[in-house]
């Protein structure tokens, strides 16, 4: 991970806006990102520090904002809940200011909180609204006229949240709570050898790589010619040490772990997404020298085979395919006393896996759990769980691998202590 606290050219960033939304950005002098309803220039992020706050100013560009106390007249006093919407007509908004007037004010440099205040003062119905509605109204206006973004470091957490918000189908709807349990229950830690199979565009692989922090191995099993899950990994801004810990392993290799082969001294063979683009378009996207260097950096086939043969410390699975079949292939490569965790989107899959594992005698403490993160609004006089929330964090099947009882052991006693 970039040890530097300053944002550099070619860094990925997560921008968390005051309208409650998160977007990804790729920083260069002229790059832009869609913030609010429009594209905004994000070149101003270069050289800024992670966590800094920016405002969207005229010309659709970002400008750094001095951090201030979030001083808010109504926020910290108990809002009377007695006022109700009894005088409110069931019509749309009543605003004295014309759209053109607002535009003119913006041109005169009236922007940000000042503009919001003016708009609120000119609302005919604001005073008649309940405290709730007033707050919602101000929030809406602030998102429109005083949009701010905070620049966050792309981490497994922020990337998970951003993908879940913007394209959940790419990451199997994996939420931070599911990811947290997956990493925790599988026992991922620095120094461990993790066996991973995932269909989450690289999010799970990235999260494991982040947690082992360059020490240990992430054996990312993939099928086909190209490791599909590299999109999210790239966004972590990893250095070469951390990149090297990720070992993209073609599934075919699992069929040969016990067989010695002449090509065992070669690096792993696969085509990267960039290579594929190069081949397809004919344009040399990646210089061949850099490509050769990257391939030379890859782990040797023989080494990977011996790691798998020795057994891995953790097994993490997140698949939209047949999770039982995946475990049938992978569980035997987890060392005894190693922990596994699988993320499933559907209860039926998780239940099938749970039952198949219980019958397999290869696992103990098999547990099927559903995770559910609830967000809470905690504000004076207005505290409640989030009104609209995603309904589930999915299902996790976890457990501990055990060695098969030896043939001599009476298998009748097997049920007792499991």
């Amino acid at each position: 991970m970039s040890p530097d606290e300053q944002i550099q050219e070619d860094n990925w960033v997560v921008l968390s806006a005051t309208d409650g939304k998160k977007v990804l950005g790729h920083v260069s002098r002229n790059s832009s990102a869609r913030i609010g309803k429009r594209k905004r220039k994000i070149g101003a992020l270069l050289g800024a520090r992670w966590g800094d706050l920016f405002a969207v100013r005229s010309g659709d560009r970002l400008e750094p904002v001095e951090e201030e106390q979030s001083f808010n007249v109504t926020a910290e006093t108990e809002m009377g809940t007695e006022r109700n919407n009894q005088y409110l007509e069931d019509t749309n908004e009543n605003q004295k200011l014309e759209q053109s007037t607002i535009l003119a004010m913006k041109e005169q440099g009236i922007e940000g909180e000042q503009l919001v205040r003016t708009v609120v003062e000119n609302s005919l119905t604001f005073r008649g609204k309940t405290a709730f509605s007033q707050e919602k109204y101000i929030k809406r206006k602030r998102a429109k006229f005083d949009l701010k973004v905070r620049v966050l470091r792309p981490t497994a957490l922020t990337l998970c949240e951003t993908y879940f918000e913007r394209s959940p189908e790419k990451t199997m709807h994996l939420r931070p709570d599911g990811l947290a349990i997956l990493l925790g229950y599988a026992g991922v830690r620095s120094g461990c050898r993790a066996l991973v199979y995932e269909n989450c565009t690289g999010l799970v692989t990235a999260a494991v790589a982040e947690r082992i922090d360059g020490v240990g191995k992430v054996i990312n099993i993939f099928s086909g010619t190209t490791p599909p899950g590299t999109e999210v990994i790239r966004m972590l801004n990893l250095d070469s040490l951390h990149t090297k810990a990720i070992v993209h392993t073609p599934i075919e290799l699992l069929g040969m772990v016990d067989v010695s082969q002449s090509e065992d001294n070669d690096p792993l063979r696969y085509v990267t997404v960039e290579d594929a683009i190069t081949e397809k378009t004919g344009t040399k996207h990646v210089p061949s020298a850099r490509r050769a260097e990257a391939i030379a950096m890859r782990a040797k086939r023989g080494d990977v085979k011996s790691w798998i043969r020795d057994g891995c410390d953790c097994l993490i699975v997140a698949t939209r395919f047949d999770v039982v079949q995946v475990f049938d292939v992978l569980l035997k490569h987890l060392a005894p006393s190693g922990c596994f965790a699988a993320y499933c989107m559907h209860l039926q899959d998780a239940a099938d896996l749970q039952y198949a594992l219980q019958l397999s005698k290869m696992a103990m403490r098999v547990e099927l759990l559903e995770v559910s993160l609830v967000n809470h609004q905690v504000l004076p006089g207005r505290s409640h769980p989030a009104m609209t929330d995603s309904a589930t964090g999915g299902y996790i099947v976890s457990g501990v691998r055990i060695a098969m009882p030896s043939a001599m052991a009476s298998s009748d006693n097997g049920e007792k202590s499991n």
Partner: protein
Amino acid sequence: MPLLQGRSSSPNACDGDLIIVQEKYNALTPVVLRAGSFLNNRYGRFAHDDVIGHPLGRRWEAKSHPGTGSGTQACAGFVHALKPTPELWSLAMFHRTQIVYPHDSAVITLFLDLRPGQVLIESGTGSGSASVAFARAVAPLGQVRSFEFHKPRADAAQKDFRALGLEHVVKVTGGVDVVKQGFLGVNDGEADAVFLDLPAPYLMGEEVARVLKPNGTVCTFSPCLEQVQKSAEMFRKGPFHSVRTVTAPVRTYETREQILGTPGFDELQESQKDVANPALNDESSRHRKRQRIELSGSTRRKLKTAGAERLEMADKNDGRHDGRVIRVAARLHSRPFSSMKGHTSYLTFARRKRGNVKASPNNGAGPKLLLGDAKSGADGSGISRRESCIIS
């Protein structure tokens, strides 16, 4: 077996290692291996020497059956010997206080953005279940600096951490009241993260601001919403951003096989076939019946359970299980266990703003949090600053 044993060391258990022994699903015990020693329980007498020098994650067979006193039927046999993990440890350890459950510590670990090499400040240590989970995340070079007011409890926790081989990662300071004395010995801006499991986390705002790095994250763990209301207000008024409160309840499911068929309905459907089609001869009726059964598929198979399938499969392999994970054709049924830990605590997270923050004017309601310059106020004792935190 140290909890965080790396790949480089031997995969075998050593004399002096702490292991977790599972007797039954809900009976886990920590055992420190000593050459020549024995473990005695209801399943028999187990020789430590049978485990020392061997890999874990397997059966541990009894040397002899338990004594036949008290008339209990000796169901001797084996237990399982496992490597310790924070999750197993939280089930095996002695609960000196309400513990932080593994699902909560997993979520806290991710939301605190913990990484190897980081420094986490924790108060209080309690039973140490969260400390162990955090230690795994920051090890091997990071630090968990844990404060516990109750001296005997701090000593007991430190002893556990030593047994788990975590003494290089977790340091417990006992007998300090952090609300009054602050995080004694922690320098300004030294912490990557702070975890507060205290009755009044909202009194700790200034001290947390002092020790946290810019963008460092703090988490408060509070069972009641009233504590959260005060903490959230303190964070909003202080030099913090990205304040959020979540709960992360989990529920566990049990899965069983179901045998289909409904008494009375089966017979009615059969008889209706005959009544509705009196003209059809037996042959045709039997044909229709077969069709219907085919249509509704193998889910209707009432006889072959998954256990039967499994046995059939074992038969083909000379009575041995063959190390496969196979989807069963039997119909399965799942439901959450009828009782669950519904609520543990609210988790409130906030991140330290960069730079110094001016004192917030008092709005006449709620806690008055007077924040000085977070950096300059450091004098090592933390006491004077504590006193400027006044709750009305």
